[in-house]
């Protein structure tokens, strides 16, 4: 008999997410539903405000990819006003967002996703001497895993566990037989978990140097940036470089080796494509490499669409083909709508309480606060994997080089007798690997950018802002800010009338990935990725966490929308048909 599982809350993510899965007699997932259970209504709040203030407010959509929302919102307004920012501003914005990438990806790998692969309790049984030997298999100069360091970490953990309370490590799926790393490998990863926790503060400082603080930076304005004193001060540039160098060292001697190490153990799941899902990939494109006009500049990540995992073809991305559908989302609307004209009204239809006392999603009807984005009549996945896939398909030299190197090194470390196959990237593990590849690339390219900024400032160019006449340009305008958050394509669309925001919509990474089914019953990326996965123990659905976490969910971002007024809410008699 099939089983219907609820996993709520999905933890180690940002925001509120519920997954329900139907599992057959062989413990294989046959059906899956993703639901967001929190809503704030930020787009309604934006209406009628000064477009210059939108960046500050939309940044609060999310405390994780905070700076990305900030930049996209400002950019959407700049696009509407046709204001091109100076070189210094472009470089500072790239550096701030680059810092966000490397910070976010490392935190994700170790602190959010890592515990799906690493059994911390097993690390207690490790032989530190053997662990040191193990670490040299994956890196010539492994990070922070000398024998004495490992002993110290093990003692600290043992003491912690002996005292009886595990705090944030309590009640996880420890001991699940699908945890496959050896005690020594677990110890290495645990050591890096703790070291990364300490080191990530430096990566956050990278953003604060030009952004004032992290999270929620405060130095970007329509037309440019405000941190001119940080640009012109060589000590600030030097600090940035020092911290970046230190962090890059960690990426190359801990993060990448740990991905190889975990990849070696979980390689079969990658090769059989567990967790691949839709295999349609979309990249909005991002990180402008020159100062030409809007959406003409060369991008570090080229935009494009790849369908059915076919790397031989890349379709150009066209923002006019982005729509959102609400057939299975708690809103009312007629047909899929483009974000410029997105009109949505909440229509909450609740959960259904069953005899077992739990409240279930009404999956035939509406079941999430997230809308279903559709691109040119296709459901697509966004994120680091999409960026790498589109980059390779588009023949981007830099991305191809990093992906090829990674696959070659992995193949060599695993003794595959050649590079690991590209198709292995179409999997849960592949999504995690793509993030690591991208982190290395980003860390390297940021070194060039900070040098470029320093050289530009030294040449005497301290231009940080482009002047514009607000009253003239804000009469009737519309624009979009399209780019790539660490989690994937993030877009803000804004319509401005008489100096005020008339309409505002955001279609962001987790809207694409965490969306429910659409008007044609097609699944969203999370849902599709779960189908066919075998769960070792239904009481410990570790495999569900793995695949969902591999997307790096950011749910608060995904739930935006709404076009209602507070007083209208009295009309919805939701209390009666909800299971509470």
């Amino acid at each position: 008999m099939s089983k219907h599982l609820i996993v709520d809350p999905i933890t180690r993510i940002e925001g509120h997410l519920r997954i329900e899965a139907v599992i057959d007699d062989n413990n294989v997932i046959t059906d899956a539903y993703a639901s967001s259970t929190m809503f704030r209504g930020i787009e309604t709040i934006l209406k009628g405000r000064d477009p210059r203030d939108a960046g500050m407010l939309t940044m609060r959509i999310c405390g994780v990819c905070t700076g990305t929302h900030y930049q996209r919102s400002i950019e959407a307004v700049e696009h509407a006003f046709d204001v091109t920012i100076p070189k210094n501003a472009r470089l500072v914005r790239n550096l701030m967002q680059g810092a966000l990438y490397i910070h976010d990806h490392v935190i994700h790998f170790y602190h959010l996703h890592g515990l799906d692969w690493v059994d911390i309790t097993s690390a207690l049984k490790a032989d530190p001497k053997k662990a040191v030997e193990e670490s040299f298999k994956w890196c010539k100069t492994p990070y922070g895993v000398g024998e004495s360091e490992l002993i110290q970490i093990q003692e600290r953990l043992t003491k912690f566990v002996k005292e009886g309370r595990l705090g944030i490590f309590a009640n996880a799926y420890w001991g699940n037989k699908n945890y496959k790393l050896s005690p020594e490998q677990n110890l290495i990863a645990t050591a890096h978990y703790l070291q990364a926790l300490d080191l990530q503060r430096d990566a956050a400082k990278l953003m604060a140097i030009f952004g004032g603080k992290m999270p929620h930076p405060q130095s970007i304005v329509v037309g440019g940036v405000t941190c001119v004193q940080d640009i012109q001060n060589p000590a600030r540039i030097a600090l940035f470089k020092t911290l970046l160098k230190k962090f890059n060292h960690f990426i190359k001697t801990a993060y990448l080796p740990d991905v190889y190490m975990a990849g070696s153990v979980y390689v079969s799941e990658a090769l059989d494509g567990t967790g691949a899902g839709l295999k349609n990939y979309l990249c909005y494109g991002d990180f402008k490499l020159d100062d030409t006009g809007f959406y003409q500049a060369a991008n570090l990540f080229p935009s494009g669409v790849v369908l059915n995992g076919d790397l031989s073809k890349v379709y150009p991305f066209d923002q006019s083909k982005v729509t959102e559908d609400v057939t299975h989302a708690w809103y009312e609307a007629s047909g899929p709508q483009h974000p410029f004209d997105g009109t949505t009204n909440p229509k909450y239809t609740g959960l259904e309480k069953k005899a077992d006392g739990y409240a279930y999603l009404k999956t035939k009807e509406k079941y999430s606060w997230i809308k279903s984005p559709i691109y040119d009549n296709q459901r697509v996945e966004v994120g680091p994997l999409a960026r790498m896939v589109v980059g390779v398909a588009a023949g981007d030299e830099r991305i191809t080089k990093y992906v090829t190197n990674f696959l070659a090194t992995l193949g060599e470390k695993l003794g595959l007798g050649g590079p690991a196959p590209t198709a292995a990237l179409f999997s849960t593990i592949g999504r995690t690997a793509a993030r690591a590849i991208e982190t290395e690339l980003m860390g390297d390219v940021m070194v060039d950018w900070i040098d470029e900024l320093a050289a530009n400032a030294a040449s005497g160019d301290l231009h940080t802002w482009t002047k514009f006449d607000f009253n003239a340009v804000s009469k009737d305008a519309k624009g979009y800010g399209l780019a790539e958050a660490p989690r994937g394509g993030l877009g803000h669309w804004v319509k401005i009338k008489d100096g005020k925001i008339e309409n505002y919509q955001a279609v962001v990474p987790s809207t694409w990935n965490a969306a429910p089914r659409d008007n044609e019953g097609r699944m969203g990326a999370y849902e599709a990725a779960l189908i066919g996965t075998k769960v070792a123990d239904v009481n410990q659905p570790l495999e569900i966490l793995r695949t969902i976490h591999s997307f790096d969910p950011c749910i608060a971002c995904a739930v935006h929308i709404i076009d209602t007024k507070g007083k209208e809410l009295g009309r919805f008699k939701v209390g009666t048909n909800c299971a509470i």
Partner: protein
Amino acid sequence: MIDKREALVKLFSAKGARVDTNKGEEYYNNLQTLMENRLNELEKAEGAYKTNIHTILEANGLSRRDFMKWASAACAMLMLPASFVPTVARAAELMNRVPIIWLELQDCAGNTEAILRSDAPTIDELLLDIVSLEFNHTIQAAAGHEAEKHLDEAIETFKGKFLCVVEGSIPRAMNGLYGTIGPHGETFEEHLLRVSAKSAAVVAVGTCATFGGVPAASPNPTGAVGVQDIVKNKPVINIPACPANPANITGTILHFVLTGQVPALDHLNRPKFAFGYRIHDNCERRAHFDAGHFVESWGDHGAKHNWCLYKMGCKGPMTFNNCSIVRYNEAVNWPIGAGHGCIGCSEPDFWDKYATERPISASRIKAPTGGVESSVDEFGLGLLTAAAIGIGIHATASIVAGKKGDSNE
């Protein structure tokens, strides 16, 4: 780089410091007795962990001297005289006896992210050793039913002893159904009431949890409110700002450990040690304000020379917080340091009242000539009045200069 700890000690110990913390010998003697009794009690109590903090610090390469330095900064931040340093150090050793259950409601996880970058103490110490963090969605290992089970267990085990830290606002429209959590589909309001009922006190962190924040901004589509509008039978401490400065969160927890009581609060339930003075009072650009040197447009001569950002919409003169001293990310920078004015994020309704890029004159607030003084409580009155006159003059000047932008209502 500015050493934050040094800056704190200097600020509170300097002659003519703008913050007068001296409350008299008798007051401090009584406080000392209260703290000693509290700490003796905590020491006897069954705590989550019994590890000696010094073993931990040693393992992290920190000496007794480093620890005392940290304790002296923490002591200064709590506005206590230097004679309290040993007591504060002892309290830090007992911090793990007060477990934390951290709830996330209508939030963006910004406060969790901020505390992850906390430097005093660092987060790995916090997690494993100093604070017993029992529950936090963003970083805890358990999920689903197991997470719920652990929450129930922790609430019962530490009944009446734990601090309930809340991040995010609470939607009340539509019977609270804009936010549900757990397999039973509990609303955020029910969830908060259930957990807070068994806590010792509730700490609302960030502007969403304190005053409703972004979700409560006009027209407040989900009927979002702050914790103090829901929790009525427990002390509620508000630590606003977007995000709350982790130093203020740690300081509040430390204060609770020290006294078993909430710290002295202002009329908005904010700890006075952190919100007892304005950004403007200790701003690094203050001298330029007094001299009348203002940035007039982004990137101009004034911007290149760190002049005052008042005319670019800085709300520092109206905003009570210690950002200008504590700063962010290990004091590496702060918004005004990065050339952007303060947006007033620790004040209620700031999204609606403070137009961020327009000067105070164009915002829906008044210069602090009447009313705002009450929030300064017993100090800084004279200075505030002087500044208010200054602000009035500049405000008038900027209207004349045609800078008035937002003309809503």
